[in-house]
């Protein structure tokens, strides 16, 4: 594995994202909506800041998922469609390095976008006089970024399995939303089911990446409290393991894929 090659590819992915309008449009929309919502004052209600936090974080989560999935889903299909994959693979580079490079590029780009979003969030909440632990915000951002690692690697695998970019994007959104909001409750649902459904649901509960581990901590930002470093580090390792598994599967799929 030549990391130099993967980083060369990642630099192209980042440059592409910087030169496309997606990120800028999403950021401006988030700023406009939260800015507008922040300007409303309901009878001097102190809870308005919490509501603003909730709204703003939801927009940030939504925007980050849109950026991560749509950017990743088109990477390998675009290489094949525009035939840039041919001069690329004619260089001393392996398909594994291409897959890893695409992952790193999308992940770095999403990380940079998250920094912009979270800094904006922190400044806006502070300006509104809301309480905010910058340490918790930082950890929540790291968890968010870790989750995007799983989503990006999953989307990369999808781009090799599904025939069209739009199908991959739709399927990824459905899977991610499903796991995000229902994944952690799957165990409880399984308990109430007869066999063999119970076993199937339990197996699913343990096999799928539990994205809720990364989403739920945002409650600390909204309602206060501190996020533990130990929890965050464990969750990051968990994300790393799933990302590595999806990347390995992507490499196996790409290795066998005909280029034409």
């Amino acid at each position, binding site marked *: 594995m030549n990391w130099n090659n993967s980083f060369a590819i990642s630099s*192209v992915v980042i*440059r*592409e994202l910087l030169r496309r309008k997606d990120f800028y449009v999403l950021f401006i929309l988030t700023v406009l909506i939260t800015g507008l919502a922040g300007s409303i004052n309901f009878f001097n209600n102190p809870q308005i800041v919490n509501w603003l936090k909730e709204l703003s974080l939801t927009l940030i989560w939504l925007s980050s998922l849109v950026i991560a999935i749509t950017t990743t889903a088109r990477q390998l299909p675009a290489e094949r469609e525009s035939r840039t994959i*041919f001069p690329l693979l*004619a260089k001393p580079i392996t398909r594994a390095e291409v897959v890893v490079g695409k992952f790193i590029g999308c992940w770095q780009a999403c990380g940079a976008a998250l920094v912009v979003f979270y800094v904006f969030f922190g400044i806006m909440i502070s300006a509104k006089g809301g309480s905010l632990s910058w340490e918790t915000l930082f950890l929540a951002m790291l968890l968010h970024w870790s989750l995007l690692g799983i989503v990006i690697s999953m989307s990369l695998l999808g781009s090799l399995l599904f025939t069209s970019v739009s199908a991959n994007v739709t399927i990824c959104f459905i899977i991610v939303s499903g796991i995000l909001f229902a994944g952690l409750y799957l165990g409880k649902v399984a308990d109430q089911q007869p066999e063999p459904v119970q076993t199937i649901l339990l197996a699913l509960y343990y096999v799928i990446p539990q994205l809720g581990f990364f989403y739920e901590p945002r409650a600390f930002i909204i309602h206060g409290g501190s996020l533990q470093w130990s929890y965050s580090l464990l969750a990051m390792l968990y994300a790393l393991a799933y990302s590595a598994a999806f990347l390995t599967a992507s490499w196996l799929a790409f290795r066998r894929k005909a280029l034409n």
Partner: protein
Amino acid sequence: MSTNEAVISLDHLKVEFKSKELGQETKIAVNDLSLKVNGGQVFGFLGPNGAGKTTTMNVLLGFVNPTGGSASIFNVDVRQPIARQRIGYLPELTYYYKFLTAEELLRFYAKIFRIPKSETEKRIDTILKLVELEHARKRQIKTYSKGMQQRAGLAQALINDPDLLILDEPTSGLDPLGRMKVRDIIRRLKDEGKTVFFSSHELGEVETVCDRIAILHQGELKVEGSVDELMKQYQTNLEAIFLKVVGYKEAA
């Protein structure tokens, strides 16, 4: 580069494509192809559409694994990525990363070859001058004409100062001026001692720039030799030889 050293070596190469559809036969794209291309030559790889030229090139570049036989470049098995360290490749009808400028594209490929930064900048200057894209080096590729894109393609194929260039129909779709420019570049590369292996349907062009040619038909090698020898042997021009070899009756 010694002219006796085999740069490309194909030994009883066979490539089959299995159809995924039921009842469809396996297609033999290349059958028992043995060929040697020596250093410093411009070698024309000819054949009608579907003859197996691009498949052979795809094997040489490691895109397709041979079903039988072997292929090597500089005595290294083509399946090893390192075999591609000393080659430059220009595919047919390729669109490069449109959001990059020509110099960014070349920097990207230079990074893969681990060319030091100072050397990269020198090479970019030289190559962009060679392919006459100096004036447009800071413009995004999406603003280039077709001819300019093809020359950007040639530039990326040259960034590692390759000893072997594999060009798949390098003048395809270009206007006469564009073709002439690409031909001039191939000649200059030959003068620098590079080996050029290229496919083309432009037989006049092949006759002008190639030292040796091979004609492939239905996956099999039909003719191989120097252009002069073949023209003496058949007492006619390359186009007539080609038509005869591929079985076009009116030419016979």
